[in-house]
């Protein structure tokens, strides 16, 4: 705020950063460069020449074979779902529907010009516009994040390690450690404690996980109703949870049950490119996700 005001005075030339306000030097200490060639120092270094090769070069130690098998889930999407979804979402003469945006103040107070804009009507935050459905924006599942935060880990960090291993066994992807962000006295948790693990699935691991989930795990859950029609973040990202008992239906865990004396529940966050939750649920229903309840009345 401070530096912005200074800049707007106009007669003094100032740098448009907030670093001066933070008590740091107001100018860049990096020497100017007189050319437009981007220099990659790794490529100039004689060390580790193999790492400079492309990632899909088999001489690169980071090479991982990707297309090792048929991806029937992805093929199902391109062969069948894409055109179906295009048809289902299509509406003739559709117009771009503007989302909820922040509103101007009515100017009744002299403080209004400097005040941040008024909240959108009926919402705390702005929502994106709903664009016209075309062949360019057919919804697709971008990624699935499995989040395994276990309360038990506050007393014994070993649980977090076991939870990570559980995620790895299920997904065949390397999980990342999950730390608590804040001190929460009510939960007895301090900032920085290792509390579990998470993993983001994309591409083939995603397909694999999705088919296991819908074909093996869901049918075996007792009285499973499915995803709620009211869940979601309004912008096409849905989430659901699996309890620690339901986790043991995964074949990787089930086949080795005596080793898994304890299993850990997890959250499944499904990130899609759908513009609304309704559209996202429609997409998920094609993969065999049961959905219960009815859509909201004002759903688009």
């Amino acid at each position, binding site marked *: 705020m401070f530096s912005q005001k200074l800049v707007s005075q106009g007669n003094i030339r100032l740098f448009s950063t907030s670093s001066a306000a933070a008590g740091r030097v107001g100018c860049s200490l990096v020497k100017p*460069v*007189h*050319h*437009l*060639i*981007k*220099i*990659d120092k790794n*490529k*100039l270094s004689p060390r580790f020449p193999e790492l*400079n090769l492309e990632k899909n070069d088999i001489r690169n130690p980071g090479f991982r074979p990707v297309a090792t098998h048929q991806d029937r889930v992805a093929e199902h999407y391109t062969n069948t779902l894409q055109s179906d979804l295009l048809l289902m979402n299509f509406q003739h003469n559709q117009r771009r529907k503007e989302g909820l945006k922040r509103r101007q103040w009515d100017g009744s107070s002299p403080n209004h010009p400097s005040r941040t804009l008024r909240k959108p009507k009926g919402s705390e935050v702005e929502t994106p516009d709903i664009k016209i459905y075309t062949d360019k924006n057919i919804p697709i599942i971008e990624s699935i994040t499995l989040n395994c935060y276990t309360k038990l880990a506050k007393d014994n960090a070993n649980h977090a390690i076991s939870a990570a291993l559980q995620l790895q066994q299920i997904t065949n992807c390397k999980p990342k450690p999950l730390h608590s962000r804040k001190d929460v006295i009510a939960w007895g948790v301090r900032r920085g404690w290792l509390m579990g693990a998470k993993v983001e699935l994309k591409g083939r691991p995603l397909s694999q996980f999705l088919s296991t989930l819908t074909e093996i795990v869901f049918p075996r859950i007792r009285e499973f109703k499915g995803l709620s029609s009211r869940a979601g973040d309004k912008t096409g990202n849905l989430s659901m949870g699996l309890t620690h008992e339901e986790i043991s239906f995964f074949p990787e865990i089930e086949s080795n049950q005596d080793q898994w004396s304890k299993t850990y529940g997890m959250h499944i966050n499904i990130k899609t490119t759908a513009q609304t939750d309704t559209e996202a649920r429609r997409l998920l229903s094609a993969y065999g996700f049961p959905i219960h309840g009815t859509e909201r009345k004002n759903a688009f």
Partner: protein
Amino acid sequence: MLRSQLLKFSKRFMATATQDSKKELEEITKSWASNSKSDSFKIKYQQSRRAVLNGVGPYGPPSLRSRRAKLQYMSPLGLDEAFDSAYEILKTKSNETYKEIEELDTKISQTKNVNELEELNNLKNSKLVQAEIDNPEVRFNFTYHDKINNDSSIIDYNEPVYRELKKKHWEDYSQMLLMQRLEQLGAIPDTLPTLNPRAEILVKFLNHTTINRWIEPGKLLPTNATSYPPSFKIQEYENVDPKKQLYTVLVVNPDVPDLENDSFKTYLHWGLSNIKLSNFNENFIGPKQILENKEINEIIDYLPPVPEKNIPTQRFITWVFRQPESISINLKNRDFDIRSFVEDHGLDAIGGHIWRSEWDSSVAKVRELYGLPKGTVYHRVRK
């Protein structure tokens, strides 16, 4: 270890006895698109060509030296089958591109508008690259042969594919190194404000036996080595007409002490203009070319670096320009303002190079050779 080796050997010999023996003698039936005619699109050495196109035979890959390594080598399973179908896919793509090129050719012959013609020619150039860039033989030729002192029957830079491959190769290392050095040594704002590199400039001092190799930009060279004029190689990557394009080469030193103004001034150590490269392969400008080619104009004769004792390291920056028209001026005075010279003649800087010099024991000898006065020795003066 012995046992596993034995197994491997026996496997190899078993294969020799049955089917692989055919492979070594098999005719090469594969051929790339019918329109790709240049000799450089084929692997010259027949054994390598057979190994690339038909697969590695029972006597092992020709690229391996020792007999033992050759016999031990096993190709990955399934590569032969995969390669055959891959080759077909790539070849049909190439054929399609060549068809597009034929259509472009007829278009080019019909158009008369200069701008349109240039656009079409550039498009044709990119299509020619596209048609050959996936050719395994082209890739083999480029990857495993000398790219600078190239044999034009293997790597022919008159073909746009090889120029494109070399450009990528240059951008991956040499271009970045040059720009880093020019920036670090302050050559860019001190001589010319900036450089947009479009051609690779290589510098070599032929006379000196110990460093008869291409000089890395920014290297500190002994005075002895730089006593005779350098030779250049100008590797163009853009689609210019080598028969018409003229080049200027300037070697400047921005670190000459200027005692009157208590500063430094720029000297022109060597200047050549109206250089013509006959094609993209023959682009070396050495003493022989300068002597034989009467069109080349020497703006000023070569003054070797003879730095005085106790002055800072001297930078010698080579600038190469494309010139719009021929330049036939000769200078007497070495005091030089490179920026105004470039502006006056409308020169377009396409590349550069830098080396550095310091006083050493051979300076006196070089001064004597060129009939220069004895150098001064600078001392620190307390202010």
